């Protein structure tokens, strides 16, 4: 930790060296959320959701790393291992994420066949028009 002591009198640089991965994680999380909220194309929304999920994986994995440790496979001549518990959780999360992506894409394909568009704004227009026509004309 000697190189960190050299930075002790420059607090922002020291914070950058130790917390940079958290800041990038938060940037990716906010970018993913921005894509989901602000863009109306469904496939881009699903890609943005994937980015959000991978930022959550980074958030779990970075505290588990021990500087000077090795990957958690036990061999006789190694002593310090990184924490294996986050790896297990993230392994499950990655595969569940791809299952969700597959289902979302299948739904998108069916919506395209029904409405001939995959932009949420245009679909909302069509649905609003149908609702208006249904309530407007009492036959």
């Amino acid at each position, binding site marked *: 930790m000697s190189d960190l002591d050299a930075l002790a009198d420059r607090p922002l640089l020291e914070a950058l060296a130790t917390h940079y991965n958290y800041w990038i994680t938060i940037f990716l999380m906010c970018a993913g959320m921005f894509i989901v909220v602000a863009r109306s194309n469904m496939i881009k929304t699903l890609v943005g959701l994937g980015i959000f999920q991978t930022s959550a994986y980074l958030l779990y994995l970075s505290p588990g790393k021990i500087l000077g440790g090795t*990957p958690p*496979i036990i061999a006789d001549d190694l002593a310090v291992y990184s924490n294996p518990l986050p790896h297990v959780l993230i*392994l499950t999360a990655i*595969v569940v994420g791809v*299952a969700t992506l*597959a289902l979302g*894409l*299948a739904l998108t*394909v069916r919506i395209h*066949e029904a409405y001939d568009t995959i932009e949420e704004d245009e679909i909302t227009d069509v649905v609003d028009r149908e609702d208006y026509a249904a309530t407007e004309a009492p036959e």
Partner: protein
Amino acid sequence: MRLDVILRVAAKLFIPFIIMFGLYVHLHGDFGPGGGFQAGVIIAAAIVLYAIIFGKAAALRAVPKWAVELMVPLGVLIYAGVGVWSMIMGGEYLNYNVLLHAGEPVGTYDAIHGQHWGVFLVEIGVLVTVTGTMLTIFYSFAGRGRPDE
């Protein structure tokens, strides 16, 4: 289309090795990185590569739909079956210590070998389900076709 001769020859050389690598990753999951999920995805990717280069009909002849759809619940059945086997042998659900009987002292269990067998069977279940699901999803997407065709 004769422009894809390079693709066809290269794919014919690669695909068996990809499947073999997938099996290697699965069976060496105890000693290095790997395991059921990675191996299942690698094997599914090899068959998807075959379908992309040689056409959907050739892929459906090689790996038919009924086989792929059978693999999807078969893995879950194997996994749950290991748990039921534990309960039959007298322990709790998915307790691998009680799977095998030990040699000399009659009535006790061989914990280490029970763990090995338990993990081995469970990983096979995971491999089968993951391969089946990825291929089912790919076949479903590929078999849809555009409405104007």
